């Protein structure tokens, strides 16, 4: 007994115990990251279409989930049956007991569409303007052949809609605003000139509309007659088909091709179906833009503050207190910065700017509402402590001998700073900036108050003067995750998209962090010194 007590006192058990807790932490992190990677990366790989016979008829779909038998409930399998326009739901749980022998029909197709999610079934025939053109396998071959052309046409229509039509709309809107200004001044001649300009634009607009109409009609000429596994029929225009995937009839290379094409669509395309399908390019672009603007703002702010605190301010209790206060700002919740951004930047500064420069478009706010500038400014404030701390550390680490050498040569303080101290502190400042970017890219709460939206009609950077629109709202990866995962009506179907977006965000943030932390470690090793 006493030996046991003795051993207990020696505490080998506790070493194991604390080791277990640490192992648990590490296992949690790794499984979390691994889970996101697996879920995100796997989604685009085409999975086979399984057909089973149930009591309610045949069911065709991808197997997406499995629930073992528990309590009263029997074992169940989740099928993604698609065809939301016909069945009303994308998923079905089917008890394993009801399943017959699973089959993998070669002719089963997964058709990605612009609306209502994918169609899963077969192509019965292909028609042109109501006339049957081909049936059966010939129809599939024909459809596959015509699909690229149809897609090209659709992109063409979309680019006209978004580019030229949008551009015209903006110009007409601008003219309308200047007309309001002129009306207030009462200059009749100027007013007439403006009217003429509007009329001219309107004519162009009408012409564009007619050509668009014809293009749209043409796109609708080819239609597919689709048939589900249980025999329901659906007519679908070829112009609204994104991809036709013969899922059970693919070689490994074919699967890879589809995987890459889907991945590309995800990264480079606009979202569809209230963000649950298509790509997230605007969100990626918005995140990058916002982080860029934030970086431009945060570096001078942080560096000047650090220079002042470390090089110019008289070291004393006050500076120490200020330093502690600035450091502690990093611990202030991000939502508080959001509240400040909303109250001060959006309503305060933005409201004043509107009153001074955009009075003609009031009460519609221009800067007096959330926008990329305000969001970036808010995040810059949020991340300034990170840059200040890193810069101060870097400035402190520059060897005294170097400064003294420079000063002894007769250089002024500024010359020493600019030519000697700052260059050797640059890697440290860069580390701070990267950490700030990593923090900024992952923040969502302050953005929700200062300018992020679920779907932005136009990007903050485009071909219209002045090209970079600081007042525009933008999309953001993090907010995209929140919005699609939690606000979307069809969040189950959108889940894989969210995983993919989460993976992307995670990659960006983690890689940036790893890079910055490695850089910092290297710098510290080179310079020596304790971290605590």
């Amino acid at each position, binding site marked *: 007994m006493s030996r046991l007590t003795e051993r207990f*006192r*020696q*505490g*080998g*058990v*506790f*070493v*194991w*115990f*604390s*080791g*277990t*807790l*640490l*192992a*648990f*932490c*590490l296992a949690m992190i790794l499984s*979390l990251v691994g889970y*996101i990677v697996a879920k995100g990366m796997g989604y685009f790989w085409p999975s086979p279409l399984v057909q089973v016979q149930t009591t309610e008829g045949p069911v065709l779909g991808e197997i997406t989930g499995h629930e073992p038998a528990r*309590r*009263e409930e029997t074992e169940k399998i989740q099928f993604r049956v698609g065809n939301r326009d016909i069945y009303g739901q994308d998923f079905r749980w089917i008890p394993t007991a009801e399943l017959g022998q699973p089959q993998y029909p070669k002719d089963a197709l997964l058709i990605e569409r612009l609306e209502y999610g994918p169609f899963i079934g077969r192509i019965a025939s292909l028609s042109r303007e109501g006339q049957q053109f081909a049936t059966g396998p010939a129809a599939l071959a024909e459809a596959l052949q015509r699909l690229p052309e149809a897609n090209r046409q659709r992109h063409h229509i979309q680019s006209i809609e978004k580019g030229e039509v949008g551009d015209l709309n903006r110009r007409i809107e601008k003219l309308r605003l200047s007309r309001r200004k002129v009306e207030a001044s009462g200059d009749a001649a100027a007013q007439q000139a403006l009217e003429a300009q509007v009329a001219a634009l309107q004519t162009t607009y009408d012409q564009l509309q007619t050509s668009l109409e014809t293009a749209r009609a043409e796109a609708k000429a080819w239609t597919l007659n689709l048939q589900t596994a249980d025999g329901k029929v659906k007519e679908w225009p070829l112009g609204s088909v994104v991809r036709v995937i013969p899922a059970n009839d693919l070689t490994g290379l074919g699967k890879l091709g589809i995987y890459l094409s889907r991945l590309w669509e995800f990264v480079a395309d606009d979202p569809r179906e209230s963000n649950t399908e298509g790509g997230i390019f605007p969100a990626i672009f918005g995140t990058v833009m916002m982080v860029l603007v934030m970086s431009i703002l945060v570096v001078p702010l942080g560096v*000047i*503050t650090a220079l*002042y*605190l470390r090089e*110019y301010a008289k070291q004393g209790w006050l500076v120490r207190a*200020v330093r502690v206060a*600035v450091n*502690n700002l990093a*611990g*202030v*919740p*991000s*939502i*508080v910065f959001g*509240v*400040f951004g*909303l*109250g*001060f930047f959006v309503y305060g500064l933005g409201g004043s700017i509107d009153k001074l420069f955009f009075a003609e478009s009031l009460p519609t706010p221009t800067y007096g509402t959330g926008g990329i500038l305000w969001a970036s400014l808010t995040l810059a404030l949020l991340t*300034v402590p990170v840059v200040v701390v890193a810069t101060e550390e870097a400035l402190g680490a520059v060897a005294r001998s170097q400064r003294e050498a420079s000063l002894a040569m007769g250089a*002024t303080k*500024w010359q020493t700073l600019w030519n000697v101290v700052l260059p050797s502190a640059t890697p440290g400042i860069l580390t701070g900036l990267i950490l700030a970017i*990593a923090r900024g890219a*992952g*923040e*969502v*709460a302050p953005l*929700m*108050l200062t300018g992020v939206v679920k779907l932005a009609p136009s990007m903050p950077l485009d071909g219209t003067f002045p090209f970079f629109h600081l007042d525009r709202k933008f999309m953001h990866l*993090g907010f995209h995750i929140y919005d699609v*995962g*939690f606000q979307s009506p069809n*969040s189950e179907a959108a*889940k894989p998209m969210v995983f993919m977006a989460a993976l992307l*965000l995670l990659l960006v943030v*983690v890689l940036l*962090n790893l890079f910055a932390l490695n850089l910092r470690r290297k710098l510290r090793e080179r310079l020596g010194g304790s971290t*605590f």
Partner: protein
Amino acid sequence: MPSTTSHQARAKHVDKFMAFTISGGGLLIIGAVLAMLLFILKEAIPLFLPPQSKSMGMLQATRAGGAWVDESGKAIVLMSPTGGLKALRFPEGTPLPAPADGPALPWRSATALNARGESLVVGADGHLFLTRLTWSKPAGENDPAQWTLEPRWQGGLQLEQVPSEILHFRLMEGGGLGGDVSLRIVAQTPTGLVWTETSLEASSPVVAWKSIAYEPSLQPTAVVWSSDGKILFVGTREGQLVALDPESGRSLSSEGFGEPIQSLGFALGQQSLLVGGVQGKLAAYQRVRVNEVFKLQAFHSFPRLSGPVLGFQASQRDKRFLAWTASEMVVDHLTTERRMFAARLEGPGAAALAPRGDVILHANEATGALRLWSLDAPHPEISFGLLWGKTHYEGYEKPEYVWQSTGGADDFEPKFSLVPLVFGTLKGTLYAMLFAFPLAVLGALYTSQFATPRLKNAIKPTIEIMAALPSVVLGFLAGLVMAPLLERMAVEVFLYPFVVLLLSLLIAPFWGRLSLPFRNAFGNGREVLWMVPVLLVALMLTSTMGPWIERVVMGGSYRTWLQSALGVTYDQRNSLVVGFAMGFAVIPIIFTISEDALSSVPKSLTSASLACGASPWQTAWRIVLPTASPGIFSATMVGLGRAIGETMIVLMATGNTPVMDWSPFNGMRTLSANIAVEIPEAPLHGSLYRVLFLAAFLLFILTFVLNTVAELVRQRLRRRYESI
């Protein structure tokens, strides 16, 4: 060399300029960053400013029995049986056009104009008319000088008997198709109280009165209809307030008031009955369900007035109301019981509160003098007591802490108690810390004291990566993956830590029996790696044991078991999920700072301990941990700060219901999530907006203090290490 001197001079200038710029810029930036706090505070402060009132002046007019003031405070309507309706412009006193299209003058009687500008008039011919004040304004014309008063007259109903006084009437909108309006009237006749319900069509049959067979001992002094027009509230000379069924005359409930009742009225929403006594007592009652029975309940009382309370008028914007006697006039707020306005009067008369509640009018009955006051109180519904104390709201049985900022109707009573939100914040933080603290501190202890250097170099970056995980990703996983998983496998999840603990306790003695060279070569310092398979084994064990335990011990389903054995319900998005996810966010913070503190404990101390024969664990537990405890305290403070302010995880992983319940199976709403949910909808500079700024201010102060304390403790510790 002159060029060098000029060069030097320029360099000096540049140096001076840069010194100035950087000092100025630095100070400016620091000032701006710190001014954030002041700005947030500045936005919240108007909540607590006292209401401002000032006299708008006096005007001599004809004597009147009824008065009404427009929301601009510039147009006044006076009404008297002899003079009819007259409109005046204030402060000039010039009459505004008003067609005399009502019943012929003089009228027999007229009720005082109510807050919506309605009155019942009995004409000279004994017919009954309803009038509603409306203005005809030229488009975009805000100057009342250009307005015309166009009262809408309806009725002309023939009365079976002209009552001596019409006590109260209520318009019941939308009874039938086309929104038919019906009218319920209660009146006093020489033989007692009578009531009737009639339509407003002039073609209606003669209005017949039904007498109310109430208890003969009651002497009614004031009577009003309930909001649905089904119940009469009667105040009596005996000081009883009675809810009466008009059809049967039966008393549904009654309550003593303490002094004879003089007048009755309603606050906005017609839920709260305002009662005024003969000696100036002022209270609000409501009819509320207590233990399945409707009861009259006194739920607010206000400072006493002097003399009998002559009348009430409610604001049409919020829950403030006007009450007056012959000598004074006050505006009180129902919810906060705050007196917003008080003025002395020179005699009895008619009084009115503008629809927005910002202009107050008194018309002296004897002299005809009109007096107006303006009242500026943007946030009357907020008081310190309301934010932090229990408040008795309309429809509630007793005072409670409630957060419900908006409701469906205009007459909604906003409920701004911050207590449930602070509670939610603390609850979330508590569960997160319960999960994170032991894991992080013991993990740090292991890493700093027992792990091999190579392992340590692998562990630290991994944990740092954990710190970098965006909280939106954690929240998403918590809400969409973990919450359903936990719901399905709650028993297993609860079981798992115990199984792991048991296994690790079993391994240690076994390990002790192995030969020392083997232990040194494969084990010591690498226990973590050995534990990975153990964790997996534990996972398998629990997944088989879980369903068995659930079946045998809990009788099939843990949810019903929880419900029957502990009386708790299980929400899918609950505090456990939040604690887990937020703990995940906090672990790396506590870990990193603790690990730094633990690793920096001077080697001399540990070496001395080991040399005295202490085991490594004894050294770690008795020497290293106590020495570094300030560092761990500091780590905990920083972790707390993070947990308190975390927004996205809580937003996504809880149901965001502001309930006050410590149960780990319920959700909550935190201060931060509340801001994120509500501020996009909050009108600029409204009460909600400012309360949310106040919440942000609290968060700021709380986290700032926590972090400052942590920093100071850490600095002291650093100095101590240097001195050892």
